[in-house]
């Protein structure tokens, strides 16, 4: 099913470069201070945004991995409607040399349109920043220029690890649960799959970190950490945050989002990743359980229509109820269902009547019974 041609309207995705503010959060000694703080920023950052970035950026010893090459990505909404994507790396010894490596976090801030150009996917923004190739400066200037980032092509692929992990986590995120995930072989890959399965309006409000140690003050909806030696479990006690251990996962309970989750699973199995991308990109108004269930039903109808008979066609048309059409994507899908149903009905009505089956030859009389 070609959802890309069905769901109409232009999107900001892939529409030219996005202009971003940027900032650097790290520990250096300068004339006006020392220690972890925002050492550089472009002039467009507001005080509220700086406050939020300071709260969420990692300080000393807060990357999951210890080595020089360790890195982490985080993305979260900011007060005022913009979005922050942060790339954290180790950058040599910290200037007080009290053990551990300095954490350097490069931050970009995009407005709603700019974030939509990246499909509200912080990992796509992170790849664009990495492609920009900015080096870590020991003494960055206090004022930074704006950046122009271009969204590159997105790798479309289903989950490489067992899909049931991703399906569980998707269901939990859609239900609004906060999660800490441990044991992923590739945290970035897991995050990519999860983000691809979420409607864009859910991605827009999602706070996610990959490769940062869990910290309650970071207020992430999804934290993917490398491993846990018990400390994360201890911190999560009594919090409304669920720990998901890939080595010991809980069973998935039924939820109102099950129709959407089953739909995602079918799309992955059929490798219809481009169609999934087109569809999730257009679900930008509401991602409640009922909306997603209606969308799923409309998509299922579209898939069945080319082969269905008249009774089933009637049933499919009944999925277009009075509440369908509340969002643009539903209206587009409903219009496609109607058009396809008309075409199917016409085809069924024009089809030559099936020939009556040939009469069965008369049965030979039964032999008389001998007494």
């Amino acid at each position, binding site marked *: 099913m070609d959802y890309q041609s069905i769901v109409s309207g232009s999107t900001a995705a892939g529409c030219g470069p996005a202009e971003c503010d940027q900032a650097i959060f790290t*520990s250096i000694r300068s004339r*006006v*201070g*020392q*220690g*972890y*703080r925002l050492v550089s920023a472009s002039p467009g950052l507001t*005080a509220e945004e*700086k*406050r939020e970035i*300071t*709260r969420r950026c*990692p*300080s*000393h*010893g*807060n990357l999951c991995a210890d080595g020089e090459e360790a890195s982490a990505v985080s993305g979260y909404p900011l007060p005022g409607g913009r979005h922050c994507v942060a790339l954290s790396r180790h950058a*040599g*010894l*910290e*200037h*007080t*040399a*009290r*053990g*551990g490596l300095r954490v350097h976090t490069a931050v970009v801030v995009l407005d709603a349109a700019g974030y939509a150009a990246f499909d509200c996917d912080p990992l796509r923004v992170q790849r664009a920043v990495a492609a920009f190739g900015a080096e870590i400066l020991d003494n960055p200037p206090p004022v930074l220029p704006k950046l122009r980032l271009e969204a590159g092509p997105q790798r479309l692929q289903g989950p490489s690890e067992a899909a049931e992990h991703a399906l569980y986590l998707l269901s939990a995120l859609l239900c609004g649960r906060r999660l800490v995930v441990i044991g992923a072989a590739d945290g970035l890959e897991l995050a990519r799959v999860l983000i691809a399965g979420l409607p864009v309006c859910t991605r827009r409000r999602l706070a996610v970190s990959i490769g940062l*140690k869990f*910290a*309650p*003050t*970071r207020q992430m909806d999804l934290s993917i950490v490398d491993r846990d030696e018990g400390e994360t479990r*201890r*911190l999560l*006690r*009594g*919090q*409304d945050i669920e720990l998901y251990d890939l080595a010991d996962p809980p069973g998935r309970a039924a939820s109102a989002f099950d129709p959407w989750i089953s739909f995602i699973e079918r799309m992955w199995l059929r490798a219809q990743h481009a169609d999934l991308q087109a569809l999730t990109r257009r679900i930008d108004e509401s991602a409640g359980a009922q909306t997603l269930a209606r969308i799923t039903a409309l998509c299922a109808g579209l898939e069945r229509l080319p082969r269905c008979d008249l009774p089933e066609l009637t049933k499919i048309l009944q999925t277009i109820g009075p509440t369908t059409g509340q969002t643009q994507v539903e209206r587009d899908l409903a219009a496609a269902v109607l058009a396809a149903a008309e075409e199917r009905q016409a085809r069924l009505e024009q089809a030559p009547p099936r020939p009556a089956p040939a009469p069965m030859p008369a049965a030979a009389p039964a032999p008389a019974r001998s007494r």
Partner: protein
Amino acid sequence: MTHTLSETTCLICEQENQPDAVLCGHCSAPMDLVRETIAQQRDARIVSVIGESNVGKTVFLGFLLDMLSQRAGDFEAIPRGPYSVDLQQAVISHMAHRMFPPKTPMEAHEWYWAYYHVRRNRPGAQWVDLVMPDMAGESLAAEVATPETFQIIRNLLYKSRGILLLVDAAVASNGFAQPDFFALKMMSYIDSMYPGRRDKPIDTPMAIVLCKADYCPEAFDDPRQFVEANLNRLWNICESRFSNVEFFAASVVGSIGYATSVDGEHVIPIPLHTALRGVMEPFEWIISQL
């Protein structure tokens, strides 16, 4: 107790939590603090040690707690909960290996907290319950620069019954103004927490501790004069807005050496031995004011 606490109410931010919470879900303070307070049936008094990043708060507080544990200064002190010993153990262990302890992260759940029963070893002396957090200097700086960045700091300072403000005397004595500016901002922030009291000075006991005074021994001779001469902005705001301030000098490291990192780009200070001086006096004064 002056008010009824519940085991699910955070001692610092007074927000509700679940019964099995280890940390407060709002400010990341340990929930053991309120449980201990309820168990002792006494109000815990918060004494905050504040100062700029790298001034030596962790080392100062670690040694202070260790001295109290060893009944220095005629004090008897009992830690409540094994977590209360973590800070002094970390500091003493590192210093014994000629290393300064690791930098305190800005993430509040990684701060050390000490809850101690303390009393003078004299007839009739009352037990006092003290909560002393080891806050990150960068978190303090961020909160001062943009209030409400870290609400836990505001709550801690507002509830503090005594405050020790550590200032880098060594840097100040070399003519750099950075310690003076930080101290001024810190005092101004504390002053601004009481908006309805513009005509009355703040009477919370404030001990101004001149750290690393081994670099400038004159600070031991007359801490007041040292502050007036080298930290004049701090001196002036203390005079104008704070009615209960005392000045002290302190030093922890007896001698210090310097090494370079393998790449030669960083100078690493090595504490060769400790020689504690002036660590108890600010604490004794704060206790006498409570």
